[in-house]
């Protein structure tokens, strides 16, 4: 046995003779990550583990560890690629705290994760041991140096002869380790091997039978090796699944949600972390009569979506911060001409190129206030991956009913997080009705707003008698007077007020009154509610409130706030510097936290 037990151990594990060779830790939850050089397949290993875990009835949240480069040099701290899986006995709603169990394919990627503070101080680490005696001396000494750095920690490092083992089955261990690791983890977490095999078959469905067989062989090898050599297993209770579930990431949910909403045109320009939604859609949209148009830039993507909406069914455009910036002018136009449009902004770190693969919620103010001129519109934020699906149906409906722009603020956390959720009960009524192309009744004119609701009829090309020219030029459309402008401004704002009046006040999570109310929106919901649970368990009087609409706000907030002594917001963005002596006035002041540490990669 080549495993070398470290002197430091995270947990006391009995290994006296006579007792079972391993201890089973019964835990409510556990977080594991697999990290390798990119191209070694750690991501696939994590994905399969996540899927199997979901099928077994555990709560699970999977998130990718993405290196900054396409293919960073091997064995570099910044180059780690992989997956992080949080497994729970109850539903898991966020990526949680530090990682407790790490499988690392080399000590450098481990070092990268360590330096980012991503790992629990007492983490257990399963580390490929081939590097210690590597013929290349620089590698040997890098190994030694890393080991010294780890000695400052309480990690329990278990060296695993992954390559040695894999070479008994495959020639190139780079193409096999991941399934060997999957086997180890299956043993540790008591995963069902049949389910593992099913998922392997699904993952390699486009590959040959031979490849499937080899991967299963590696799986069994890892399982067997762990059984023989490891001294701990982890058991996390699961509830049997009683209702049909699906598992996917937030971008896939957005793509499928768009289909469910009956949208037929997605106009986009590639940008991380939004693009994968269009990869998913590009693959399947055709079957639904849909088109993914990759435009020459984000401006054109907005224009194409607006042109498509104008000519019939509501279209959408999807992007991230820099692309949202470029669409600004077109969004103002869409508000002015009251053109239904859905815009998905999958937020990343900003400003400018910023941190393209990292989560941030810093596009909020730009989404609400970014368009020059008075341009009232709707901003919504899904809070979960399930929401990412349903928000598209709602957004499309609001856009169409209120002839307005709906910006949907997703983020990198939702986009790359993978989670099971209740399978949507598909309803054909979600699909937009075909536009009415019947003749426009005599005498009906465009811009004849109902003064009470601010709503007016949209005429669609093809409708006899409806011919007119939409324009963002307030003057050439009606007249060049301030009374006209005042009225149309009122109408554009009023319909948003009407929308607001149809919304329900949000529900407080926790007690209805108390000392502290934590207010959030978007992908922080799971984390905030879990924090509230923990604090309440500690006896603190904390509740939380999650906003689904950022503009207009849901009604009743003032009343809810008044029931708590203090109200704070938690957002992943940077507010004014506390140094700042500013006082009073109308500027939004937000308390915020940067919370990118845990899964920073």
């Amino acid at each position: 046995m080549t495993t070398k037990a470290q002197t430091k151990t995270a947990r006391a594990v009995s290994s006296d003779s006579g007792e079972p060779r391993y201890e089973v830790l019964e835990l409510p939850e556990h977080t594991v990550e697999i990290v390798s050089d990119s191209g070694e397949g750690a991501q696939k290993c994590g994905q399969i583990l996540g899927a199997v875990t979901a099928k077994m009835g555990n709560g699970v949240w999977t998130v990718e560890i993405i290196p900054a480069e396409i293919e960073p040099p091997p064995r570099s701290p910044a180059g780690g690629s992989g997956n992080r899986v949080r497994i729970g006995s109850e539903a898991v709603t966020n990526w949680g705290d530090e990682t407790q169990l790490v499988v690392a394919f080399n000590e450098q990627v481990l070092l990268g994760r360590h330096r980012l503070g991503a790992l629990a101080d007492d983490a257990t680490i399963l580390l490929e041991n081939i590097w210690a005696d590597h013929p290349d001396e620089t590698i040997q000494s890098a190994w030694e140096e890393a080991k010294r750095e780890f000695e400052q920690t309480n990690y329990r490092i278990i060296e695993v002869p992954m390559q040695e083992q894999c070479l008994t089955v495959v020639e190139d261990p780079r193409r096999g380790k991941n399934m060997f690791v999957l086997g180890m983890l299956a043993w540790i977490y008591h995963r069902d091997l049949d389910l593992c095999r099913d998922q392997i078959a699904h993952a390699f469905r486009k590959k040959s039978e031979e490849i499937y067989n080899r991967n299963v062989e590696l799986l069994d090898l890892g399982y067997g090796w762990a059984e023989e050599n490891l001294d701990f297993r982890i058991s996390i209770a699961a509830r049997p699944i009683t209702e049909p579930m699906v598992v996917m990431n937030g971008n896939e949910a957005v793509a499928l949600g768009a289909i469910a909403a009956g949208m037929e045109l997605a106009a986009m320009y590639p940008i991380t972390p939004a693009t994968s939604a269009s990869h998913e859609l590009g693959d399947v949209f055709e079957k639904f009569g849909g088109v993914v148009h990759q435009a020459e830039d984000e401006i054109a993507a907005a224009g194409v979506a607006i042109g498509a909406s104008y000519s019939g069914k509501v279209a959408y455009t999807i992007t991230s911060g820099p692309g949202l910036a470029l669409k600004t002018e077109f969004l103002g136009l869409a508000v002015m001409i009251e053109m239904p449009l859905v815009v998905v902004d999958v937020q990343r770190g900003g400003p400018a190129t910023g941190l393209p693969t990292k989560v941030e919620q810093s596009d909020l103010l730009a989404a609400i206030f970014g368009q020059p001129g008075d341009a009232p519109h709707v901003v919504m934020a899904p809070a979960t991956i399930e929401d990412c699906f349903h928000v598209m149906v709602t957004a499309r409906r609001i856009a169409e009913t209120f002839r307005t722009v709906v910006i949907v603020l997703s983020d990198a956390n939702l986009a790359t997080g993978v989670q099971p959720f209740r399978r949507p009960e598909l309803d054909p009524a979600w699909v937009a009705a075909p536009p009415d192309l019947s003749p426009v009744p005599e005498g009906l004119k465009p811009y004849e707003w109902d003064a009470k609701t601010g709503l007016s009829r949209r005429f669609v090309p093809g409708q006899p008698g409806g011919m007119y020219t939409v324009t963002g030029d307030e003057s050439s459309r009606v007249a060049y007077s301030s009374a006209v402008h005042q009225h149309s401004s009122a109408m554009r704002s009023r319909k948003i007020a009407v929308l607001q009046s149809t919304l329900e006040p949000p529900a407080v999570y926790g007690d209805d009154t108390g000392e502290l109310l934590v207010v959030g929106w978007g992908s922080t919901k799971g984390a905030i509610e879990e924090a509230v649970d923990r604090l309440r368990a500690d006896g603190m009087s904390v509740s939380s409130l999650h906003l689904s609409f950022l503009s207009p706000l849901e009604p009743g907030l003032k009343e809810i706030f008044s029931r708590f002594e203090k109200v704070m917001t938690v957002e992943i963005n940077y507010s004014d510097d506390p140094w700042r002596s500013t006082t009073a006035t109308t500027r939004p002041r937000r308390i915020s936290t940067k919370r990118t540490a845990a899964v920073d990669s």
Partner: protein
Amino acid sequence: MTIPVNSLLQCALDDERIFERADYEGPIPRWCPGCGDHSVLAATQRLLADEQLQPETTVFVSGIGCSSRFPHYLKTYGFHGLHGRALPVATGIKLHRPDLDVFVVMGDGDCTSIGAGHWVHATRYNIDMVALMLDNNIYGLTKNQTSPTTPQNYPSNTQPRGSWLPALNPVEATLGITNASFVAQTAEWIPPHLFATLKAAYHHKGFAFVRILQRCPKYTAPLFEEGLKNPDSIELLIHEDGVMVDGLENAYKNQMRHDPSDIHAARRLAEEDGRTRLGVFFRDESLPRYEELRRLPVITAEEKMARLSDELDLHAV
């Protein structure tokens, strides 16, 4: 879009309406007296009547500029959008609704300056529509600033000592773009030629780009004097596959046969050499059209949900 095509087609077949020019005329245009935009509007209305296009299935998309007010003066559908962005909007319309007849009207600044990127790509997409660039060699609406097509040394408010660069040649530039399928040039002060060119553009299957030389008496009158006063400065490119106008032979003596399938000749003829050439420079209907490469099945909401359910199965736990 999937729904209305068939019913509209049916409607078109049943349609017994006959449209006169007046059926396409909107409010009185607000261009300066003598502005060339008036002539283009007149020729367009003539075309619409000549082709008996249904006003309700015809869409004019424009940017911002004097020329971009065009749609307001027609009784069809119109989209007067953003400066430089007419082409993406038209692309969206035509991708969603291939059954509509789409015309795009742009100014020279609109198309070749702020809209240059879209111009390159719309040419490349080769979606079936007519794109008119009304080129008065100046920014009209904003009152006299240099445009990319302003001739070298001609002064404006932003370059009071004359434009620094030679004028961009939009015909040459469009001919350089892969998948360009129809490139023509005409002058609004020769109405029969203008009409014939619009007609050829309308009948072309693909993206038909027409540069229209357009007088702006307000700011660039001197630039059009030669062309107006001296027909010999103009050479008409004639061909059965291009534009042939009976009755112009006397006034315009310089006529040259040019086969629009010859891209090399087209590029040579497009070059600046003191002559203004009008006609179809290039035309090729065999090139791929972006919207056709994406044929969409028509499916109902119920069918959609059934197929979506299949997709969800792939994600099932």
